[in-house]
């Protein structure tokens, strides 16, 4: 009996020492998961998630300190992608998704105060003090961060117009009868 106890204890002690050594020897630094999350985020830097930019939100997610449904520009697609990456349960978005828009500065009202320029996270507004400001449409991420600071409320968000270049083929309306079932089982392979 005593022999059995001692043998097991010795074995356990040996493996404990081995594990203790391994824990020190093979420690991994850094947090690559945050990079992966950051790559999924839309990089609007809009701050609507409550974090100052996309990277901080990614880091918070990586630490498990945040919900995955905070990114409004990413929408439901992002929630599903994050749920997939982080192995979490998908959660519905708080608010409906917005239509993609860009900021537009009313030229007549702009007083050239540069506050919107300071607010823009991606330098998509050009202009100088006391000069008319203008939005570079192709750079604007639609984050709306410039709308609030404008003292004369001359910035509006305008939906991006559909044109031939931007047009997408619609998802077929003629669905097979079992259209509501999700991805088929056969695809699991």
């Amino acid at each position, binding site marked *: *009996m005593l022999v*059995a*106890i001692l043998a097991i*204890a010795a074995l*356990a*002690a040996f493996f*404990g*020492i081995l*594990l203790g050594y391994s824990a020190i020897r093979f420690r991994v630094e850094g947090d690559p998961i945050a990079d992966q999350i950051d790559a999924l985020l839309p990089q609007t830097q809009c701050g609507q998630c409550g974090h100052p930019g996309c990277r901080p939100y990614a880091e918070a997610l990586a630490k498990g300190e945040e919900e995955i449904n905070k990114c409004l520009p990413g929408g439901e697609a992002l929630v599903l992608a994050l749920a997939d990456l982080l192995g979490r349960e998908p959660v519905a978005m708080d608010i409906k998704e917005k239509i993609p828009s860009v900021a537009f500065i009313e030229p007549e009202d702009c007083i050239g105060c540069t506050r919107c320029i300071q607010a823009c996270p991606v330098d998509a507004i050009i202009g100088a003090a006391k000069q008319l400001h203008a939005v570079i449409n192709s750079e604007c991420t639609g984050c709306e961060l410039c709308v609030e600071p404008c003292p004369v409320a001359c910035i509006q968000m305008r939906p991006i117009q559909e044109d031939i270049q931007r047009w997408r083929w619609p998802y077929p309306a003629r669905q097979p009868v079992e259209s509501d079932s999700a991805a088929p089982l056969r695809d699991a392979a």
Partner: protein
Amino acid sequence: MITKAKSILLSGSVLGAFAIGGVTLVAVTQGSVGERIADNQYQAMKRKLDTILPAAQVNNDPLQDHIQVSASELLGAESTQVYRARQDQSPVALVLEPVVPDGYAGPIKLLVSVLHDGTLGGVRVVSHHETPGLGDKIEEAKSDWVLDFTGKSLTNPPLEKWGVKRDGGEFDQFTGATITPRSIVNAVRDTLLYVQQQGETLYEPLDVDTTAPASATGGQG
């Protein structure tokens, strides 16, 4: 460096401590209920034997009184236990553990008791892999078929009638399966033949030397 070594040793000792705790717990329990467990096991085996032995006539403990024989030809296994039931030293019955090698799906283990007059005290199936719903009617729980053996001997029916009805014998096969009952009938017949061949030698009392170890192994059943 020192802290590192310390932390490694700490890991080892914590794990070791848990091992000691766990094993001690198990050891203490084992010590307190071990006898009861052994008794349970012994009782279970005994109950099984009692169903195929004329219990009223037996007053020894067949589980303590057993020998090991080797007769792969007729009993299907390299070595088999033979339990002897006696009443006041006079032989009553033998219990053998033949193996049926040619079941439909692998070997079937039997428990067969043969009374001293050569008739069957009973046949039970210990383990098998027969097709559920077809071949598994050899189990006592599923069908009464196996009970039909009780009372049969090499003369009742005569040796040539030891087969299933489909082969011209006396024993029922059950619907949907012939192979399984056929193999069992053959195996029981062979067991009877073996007992007949060996005669009284199977009842010979054990030497004093071998009794002790035999009873020890018998206890573990």
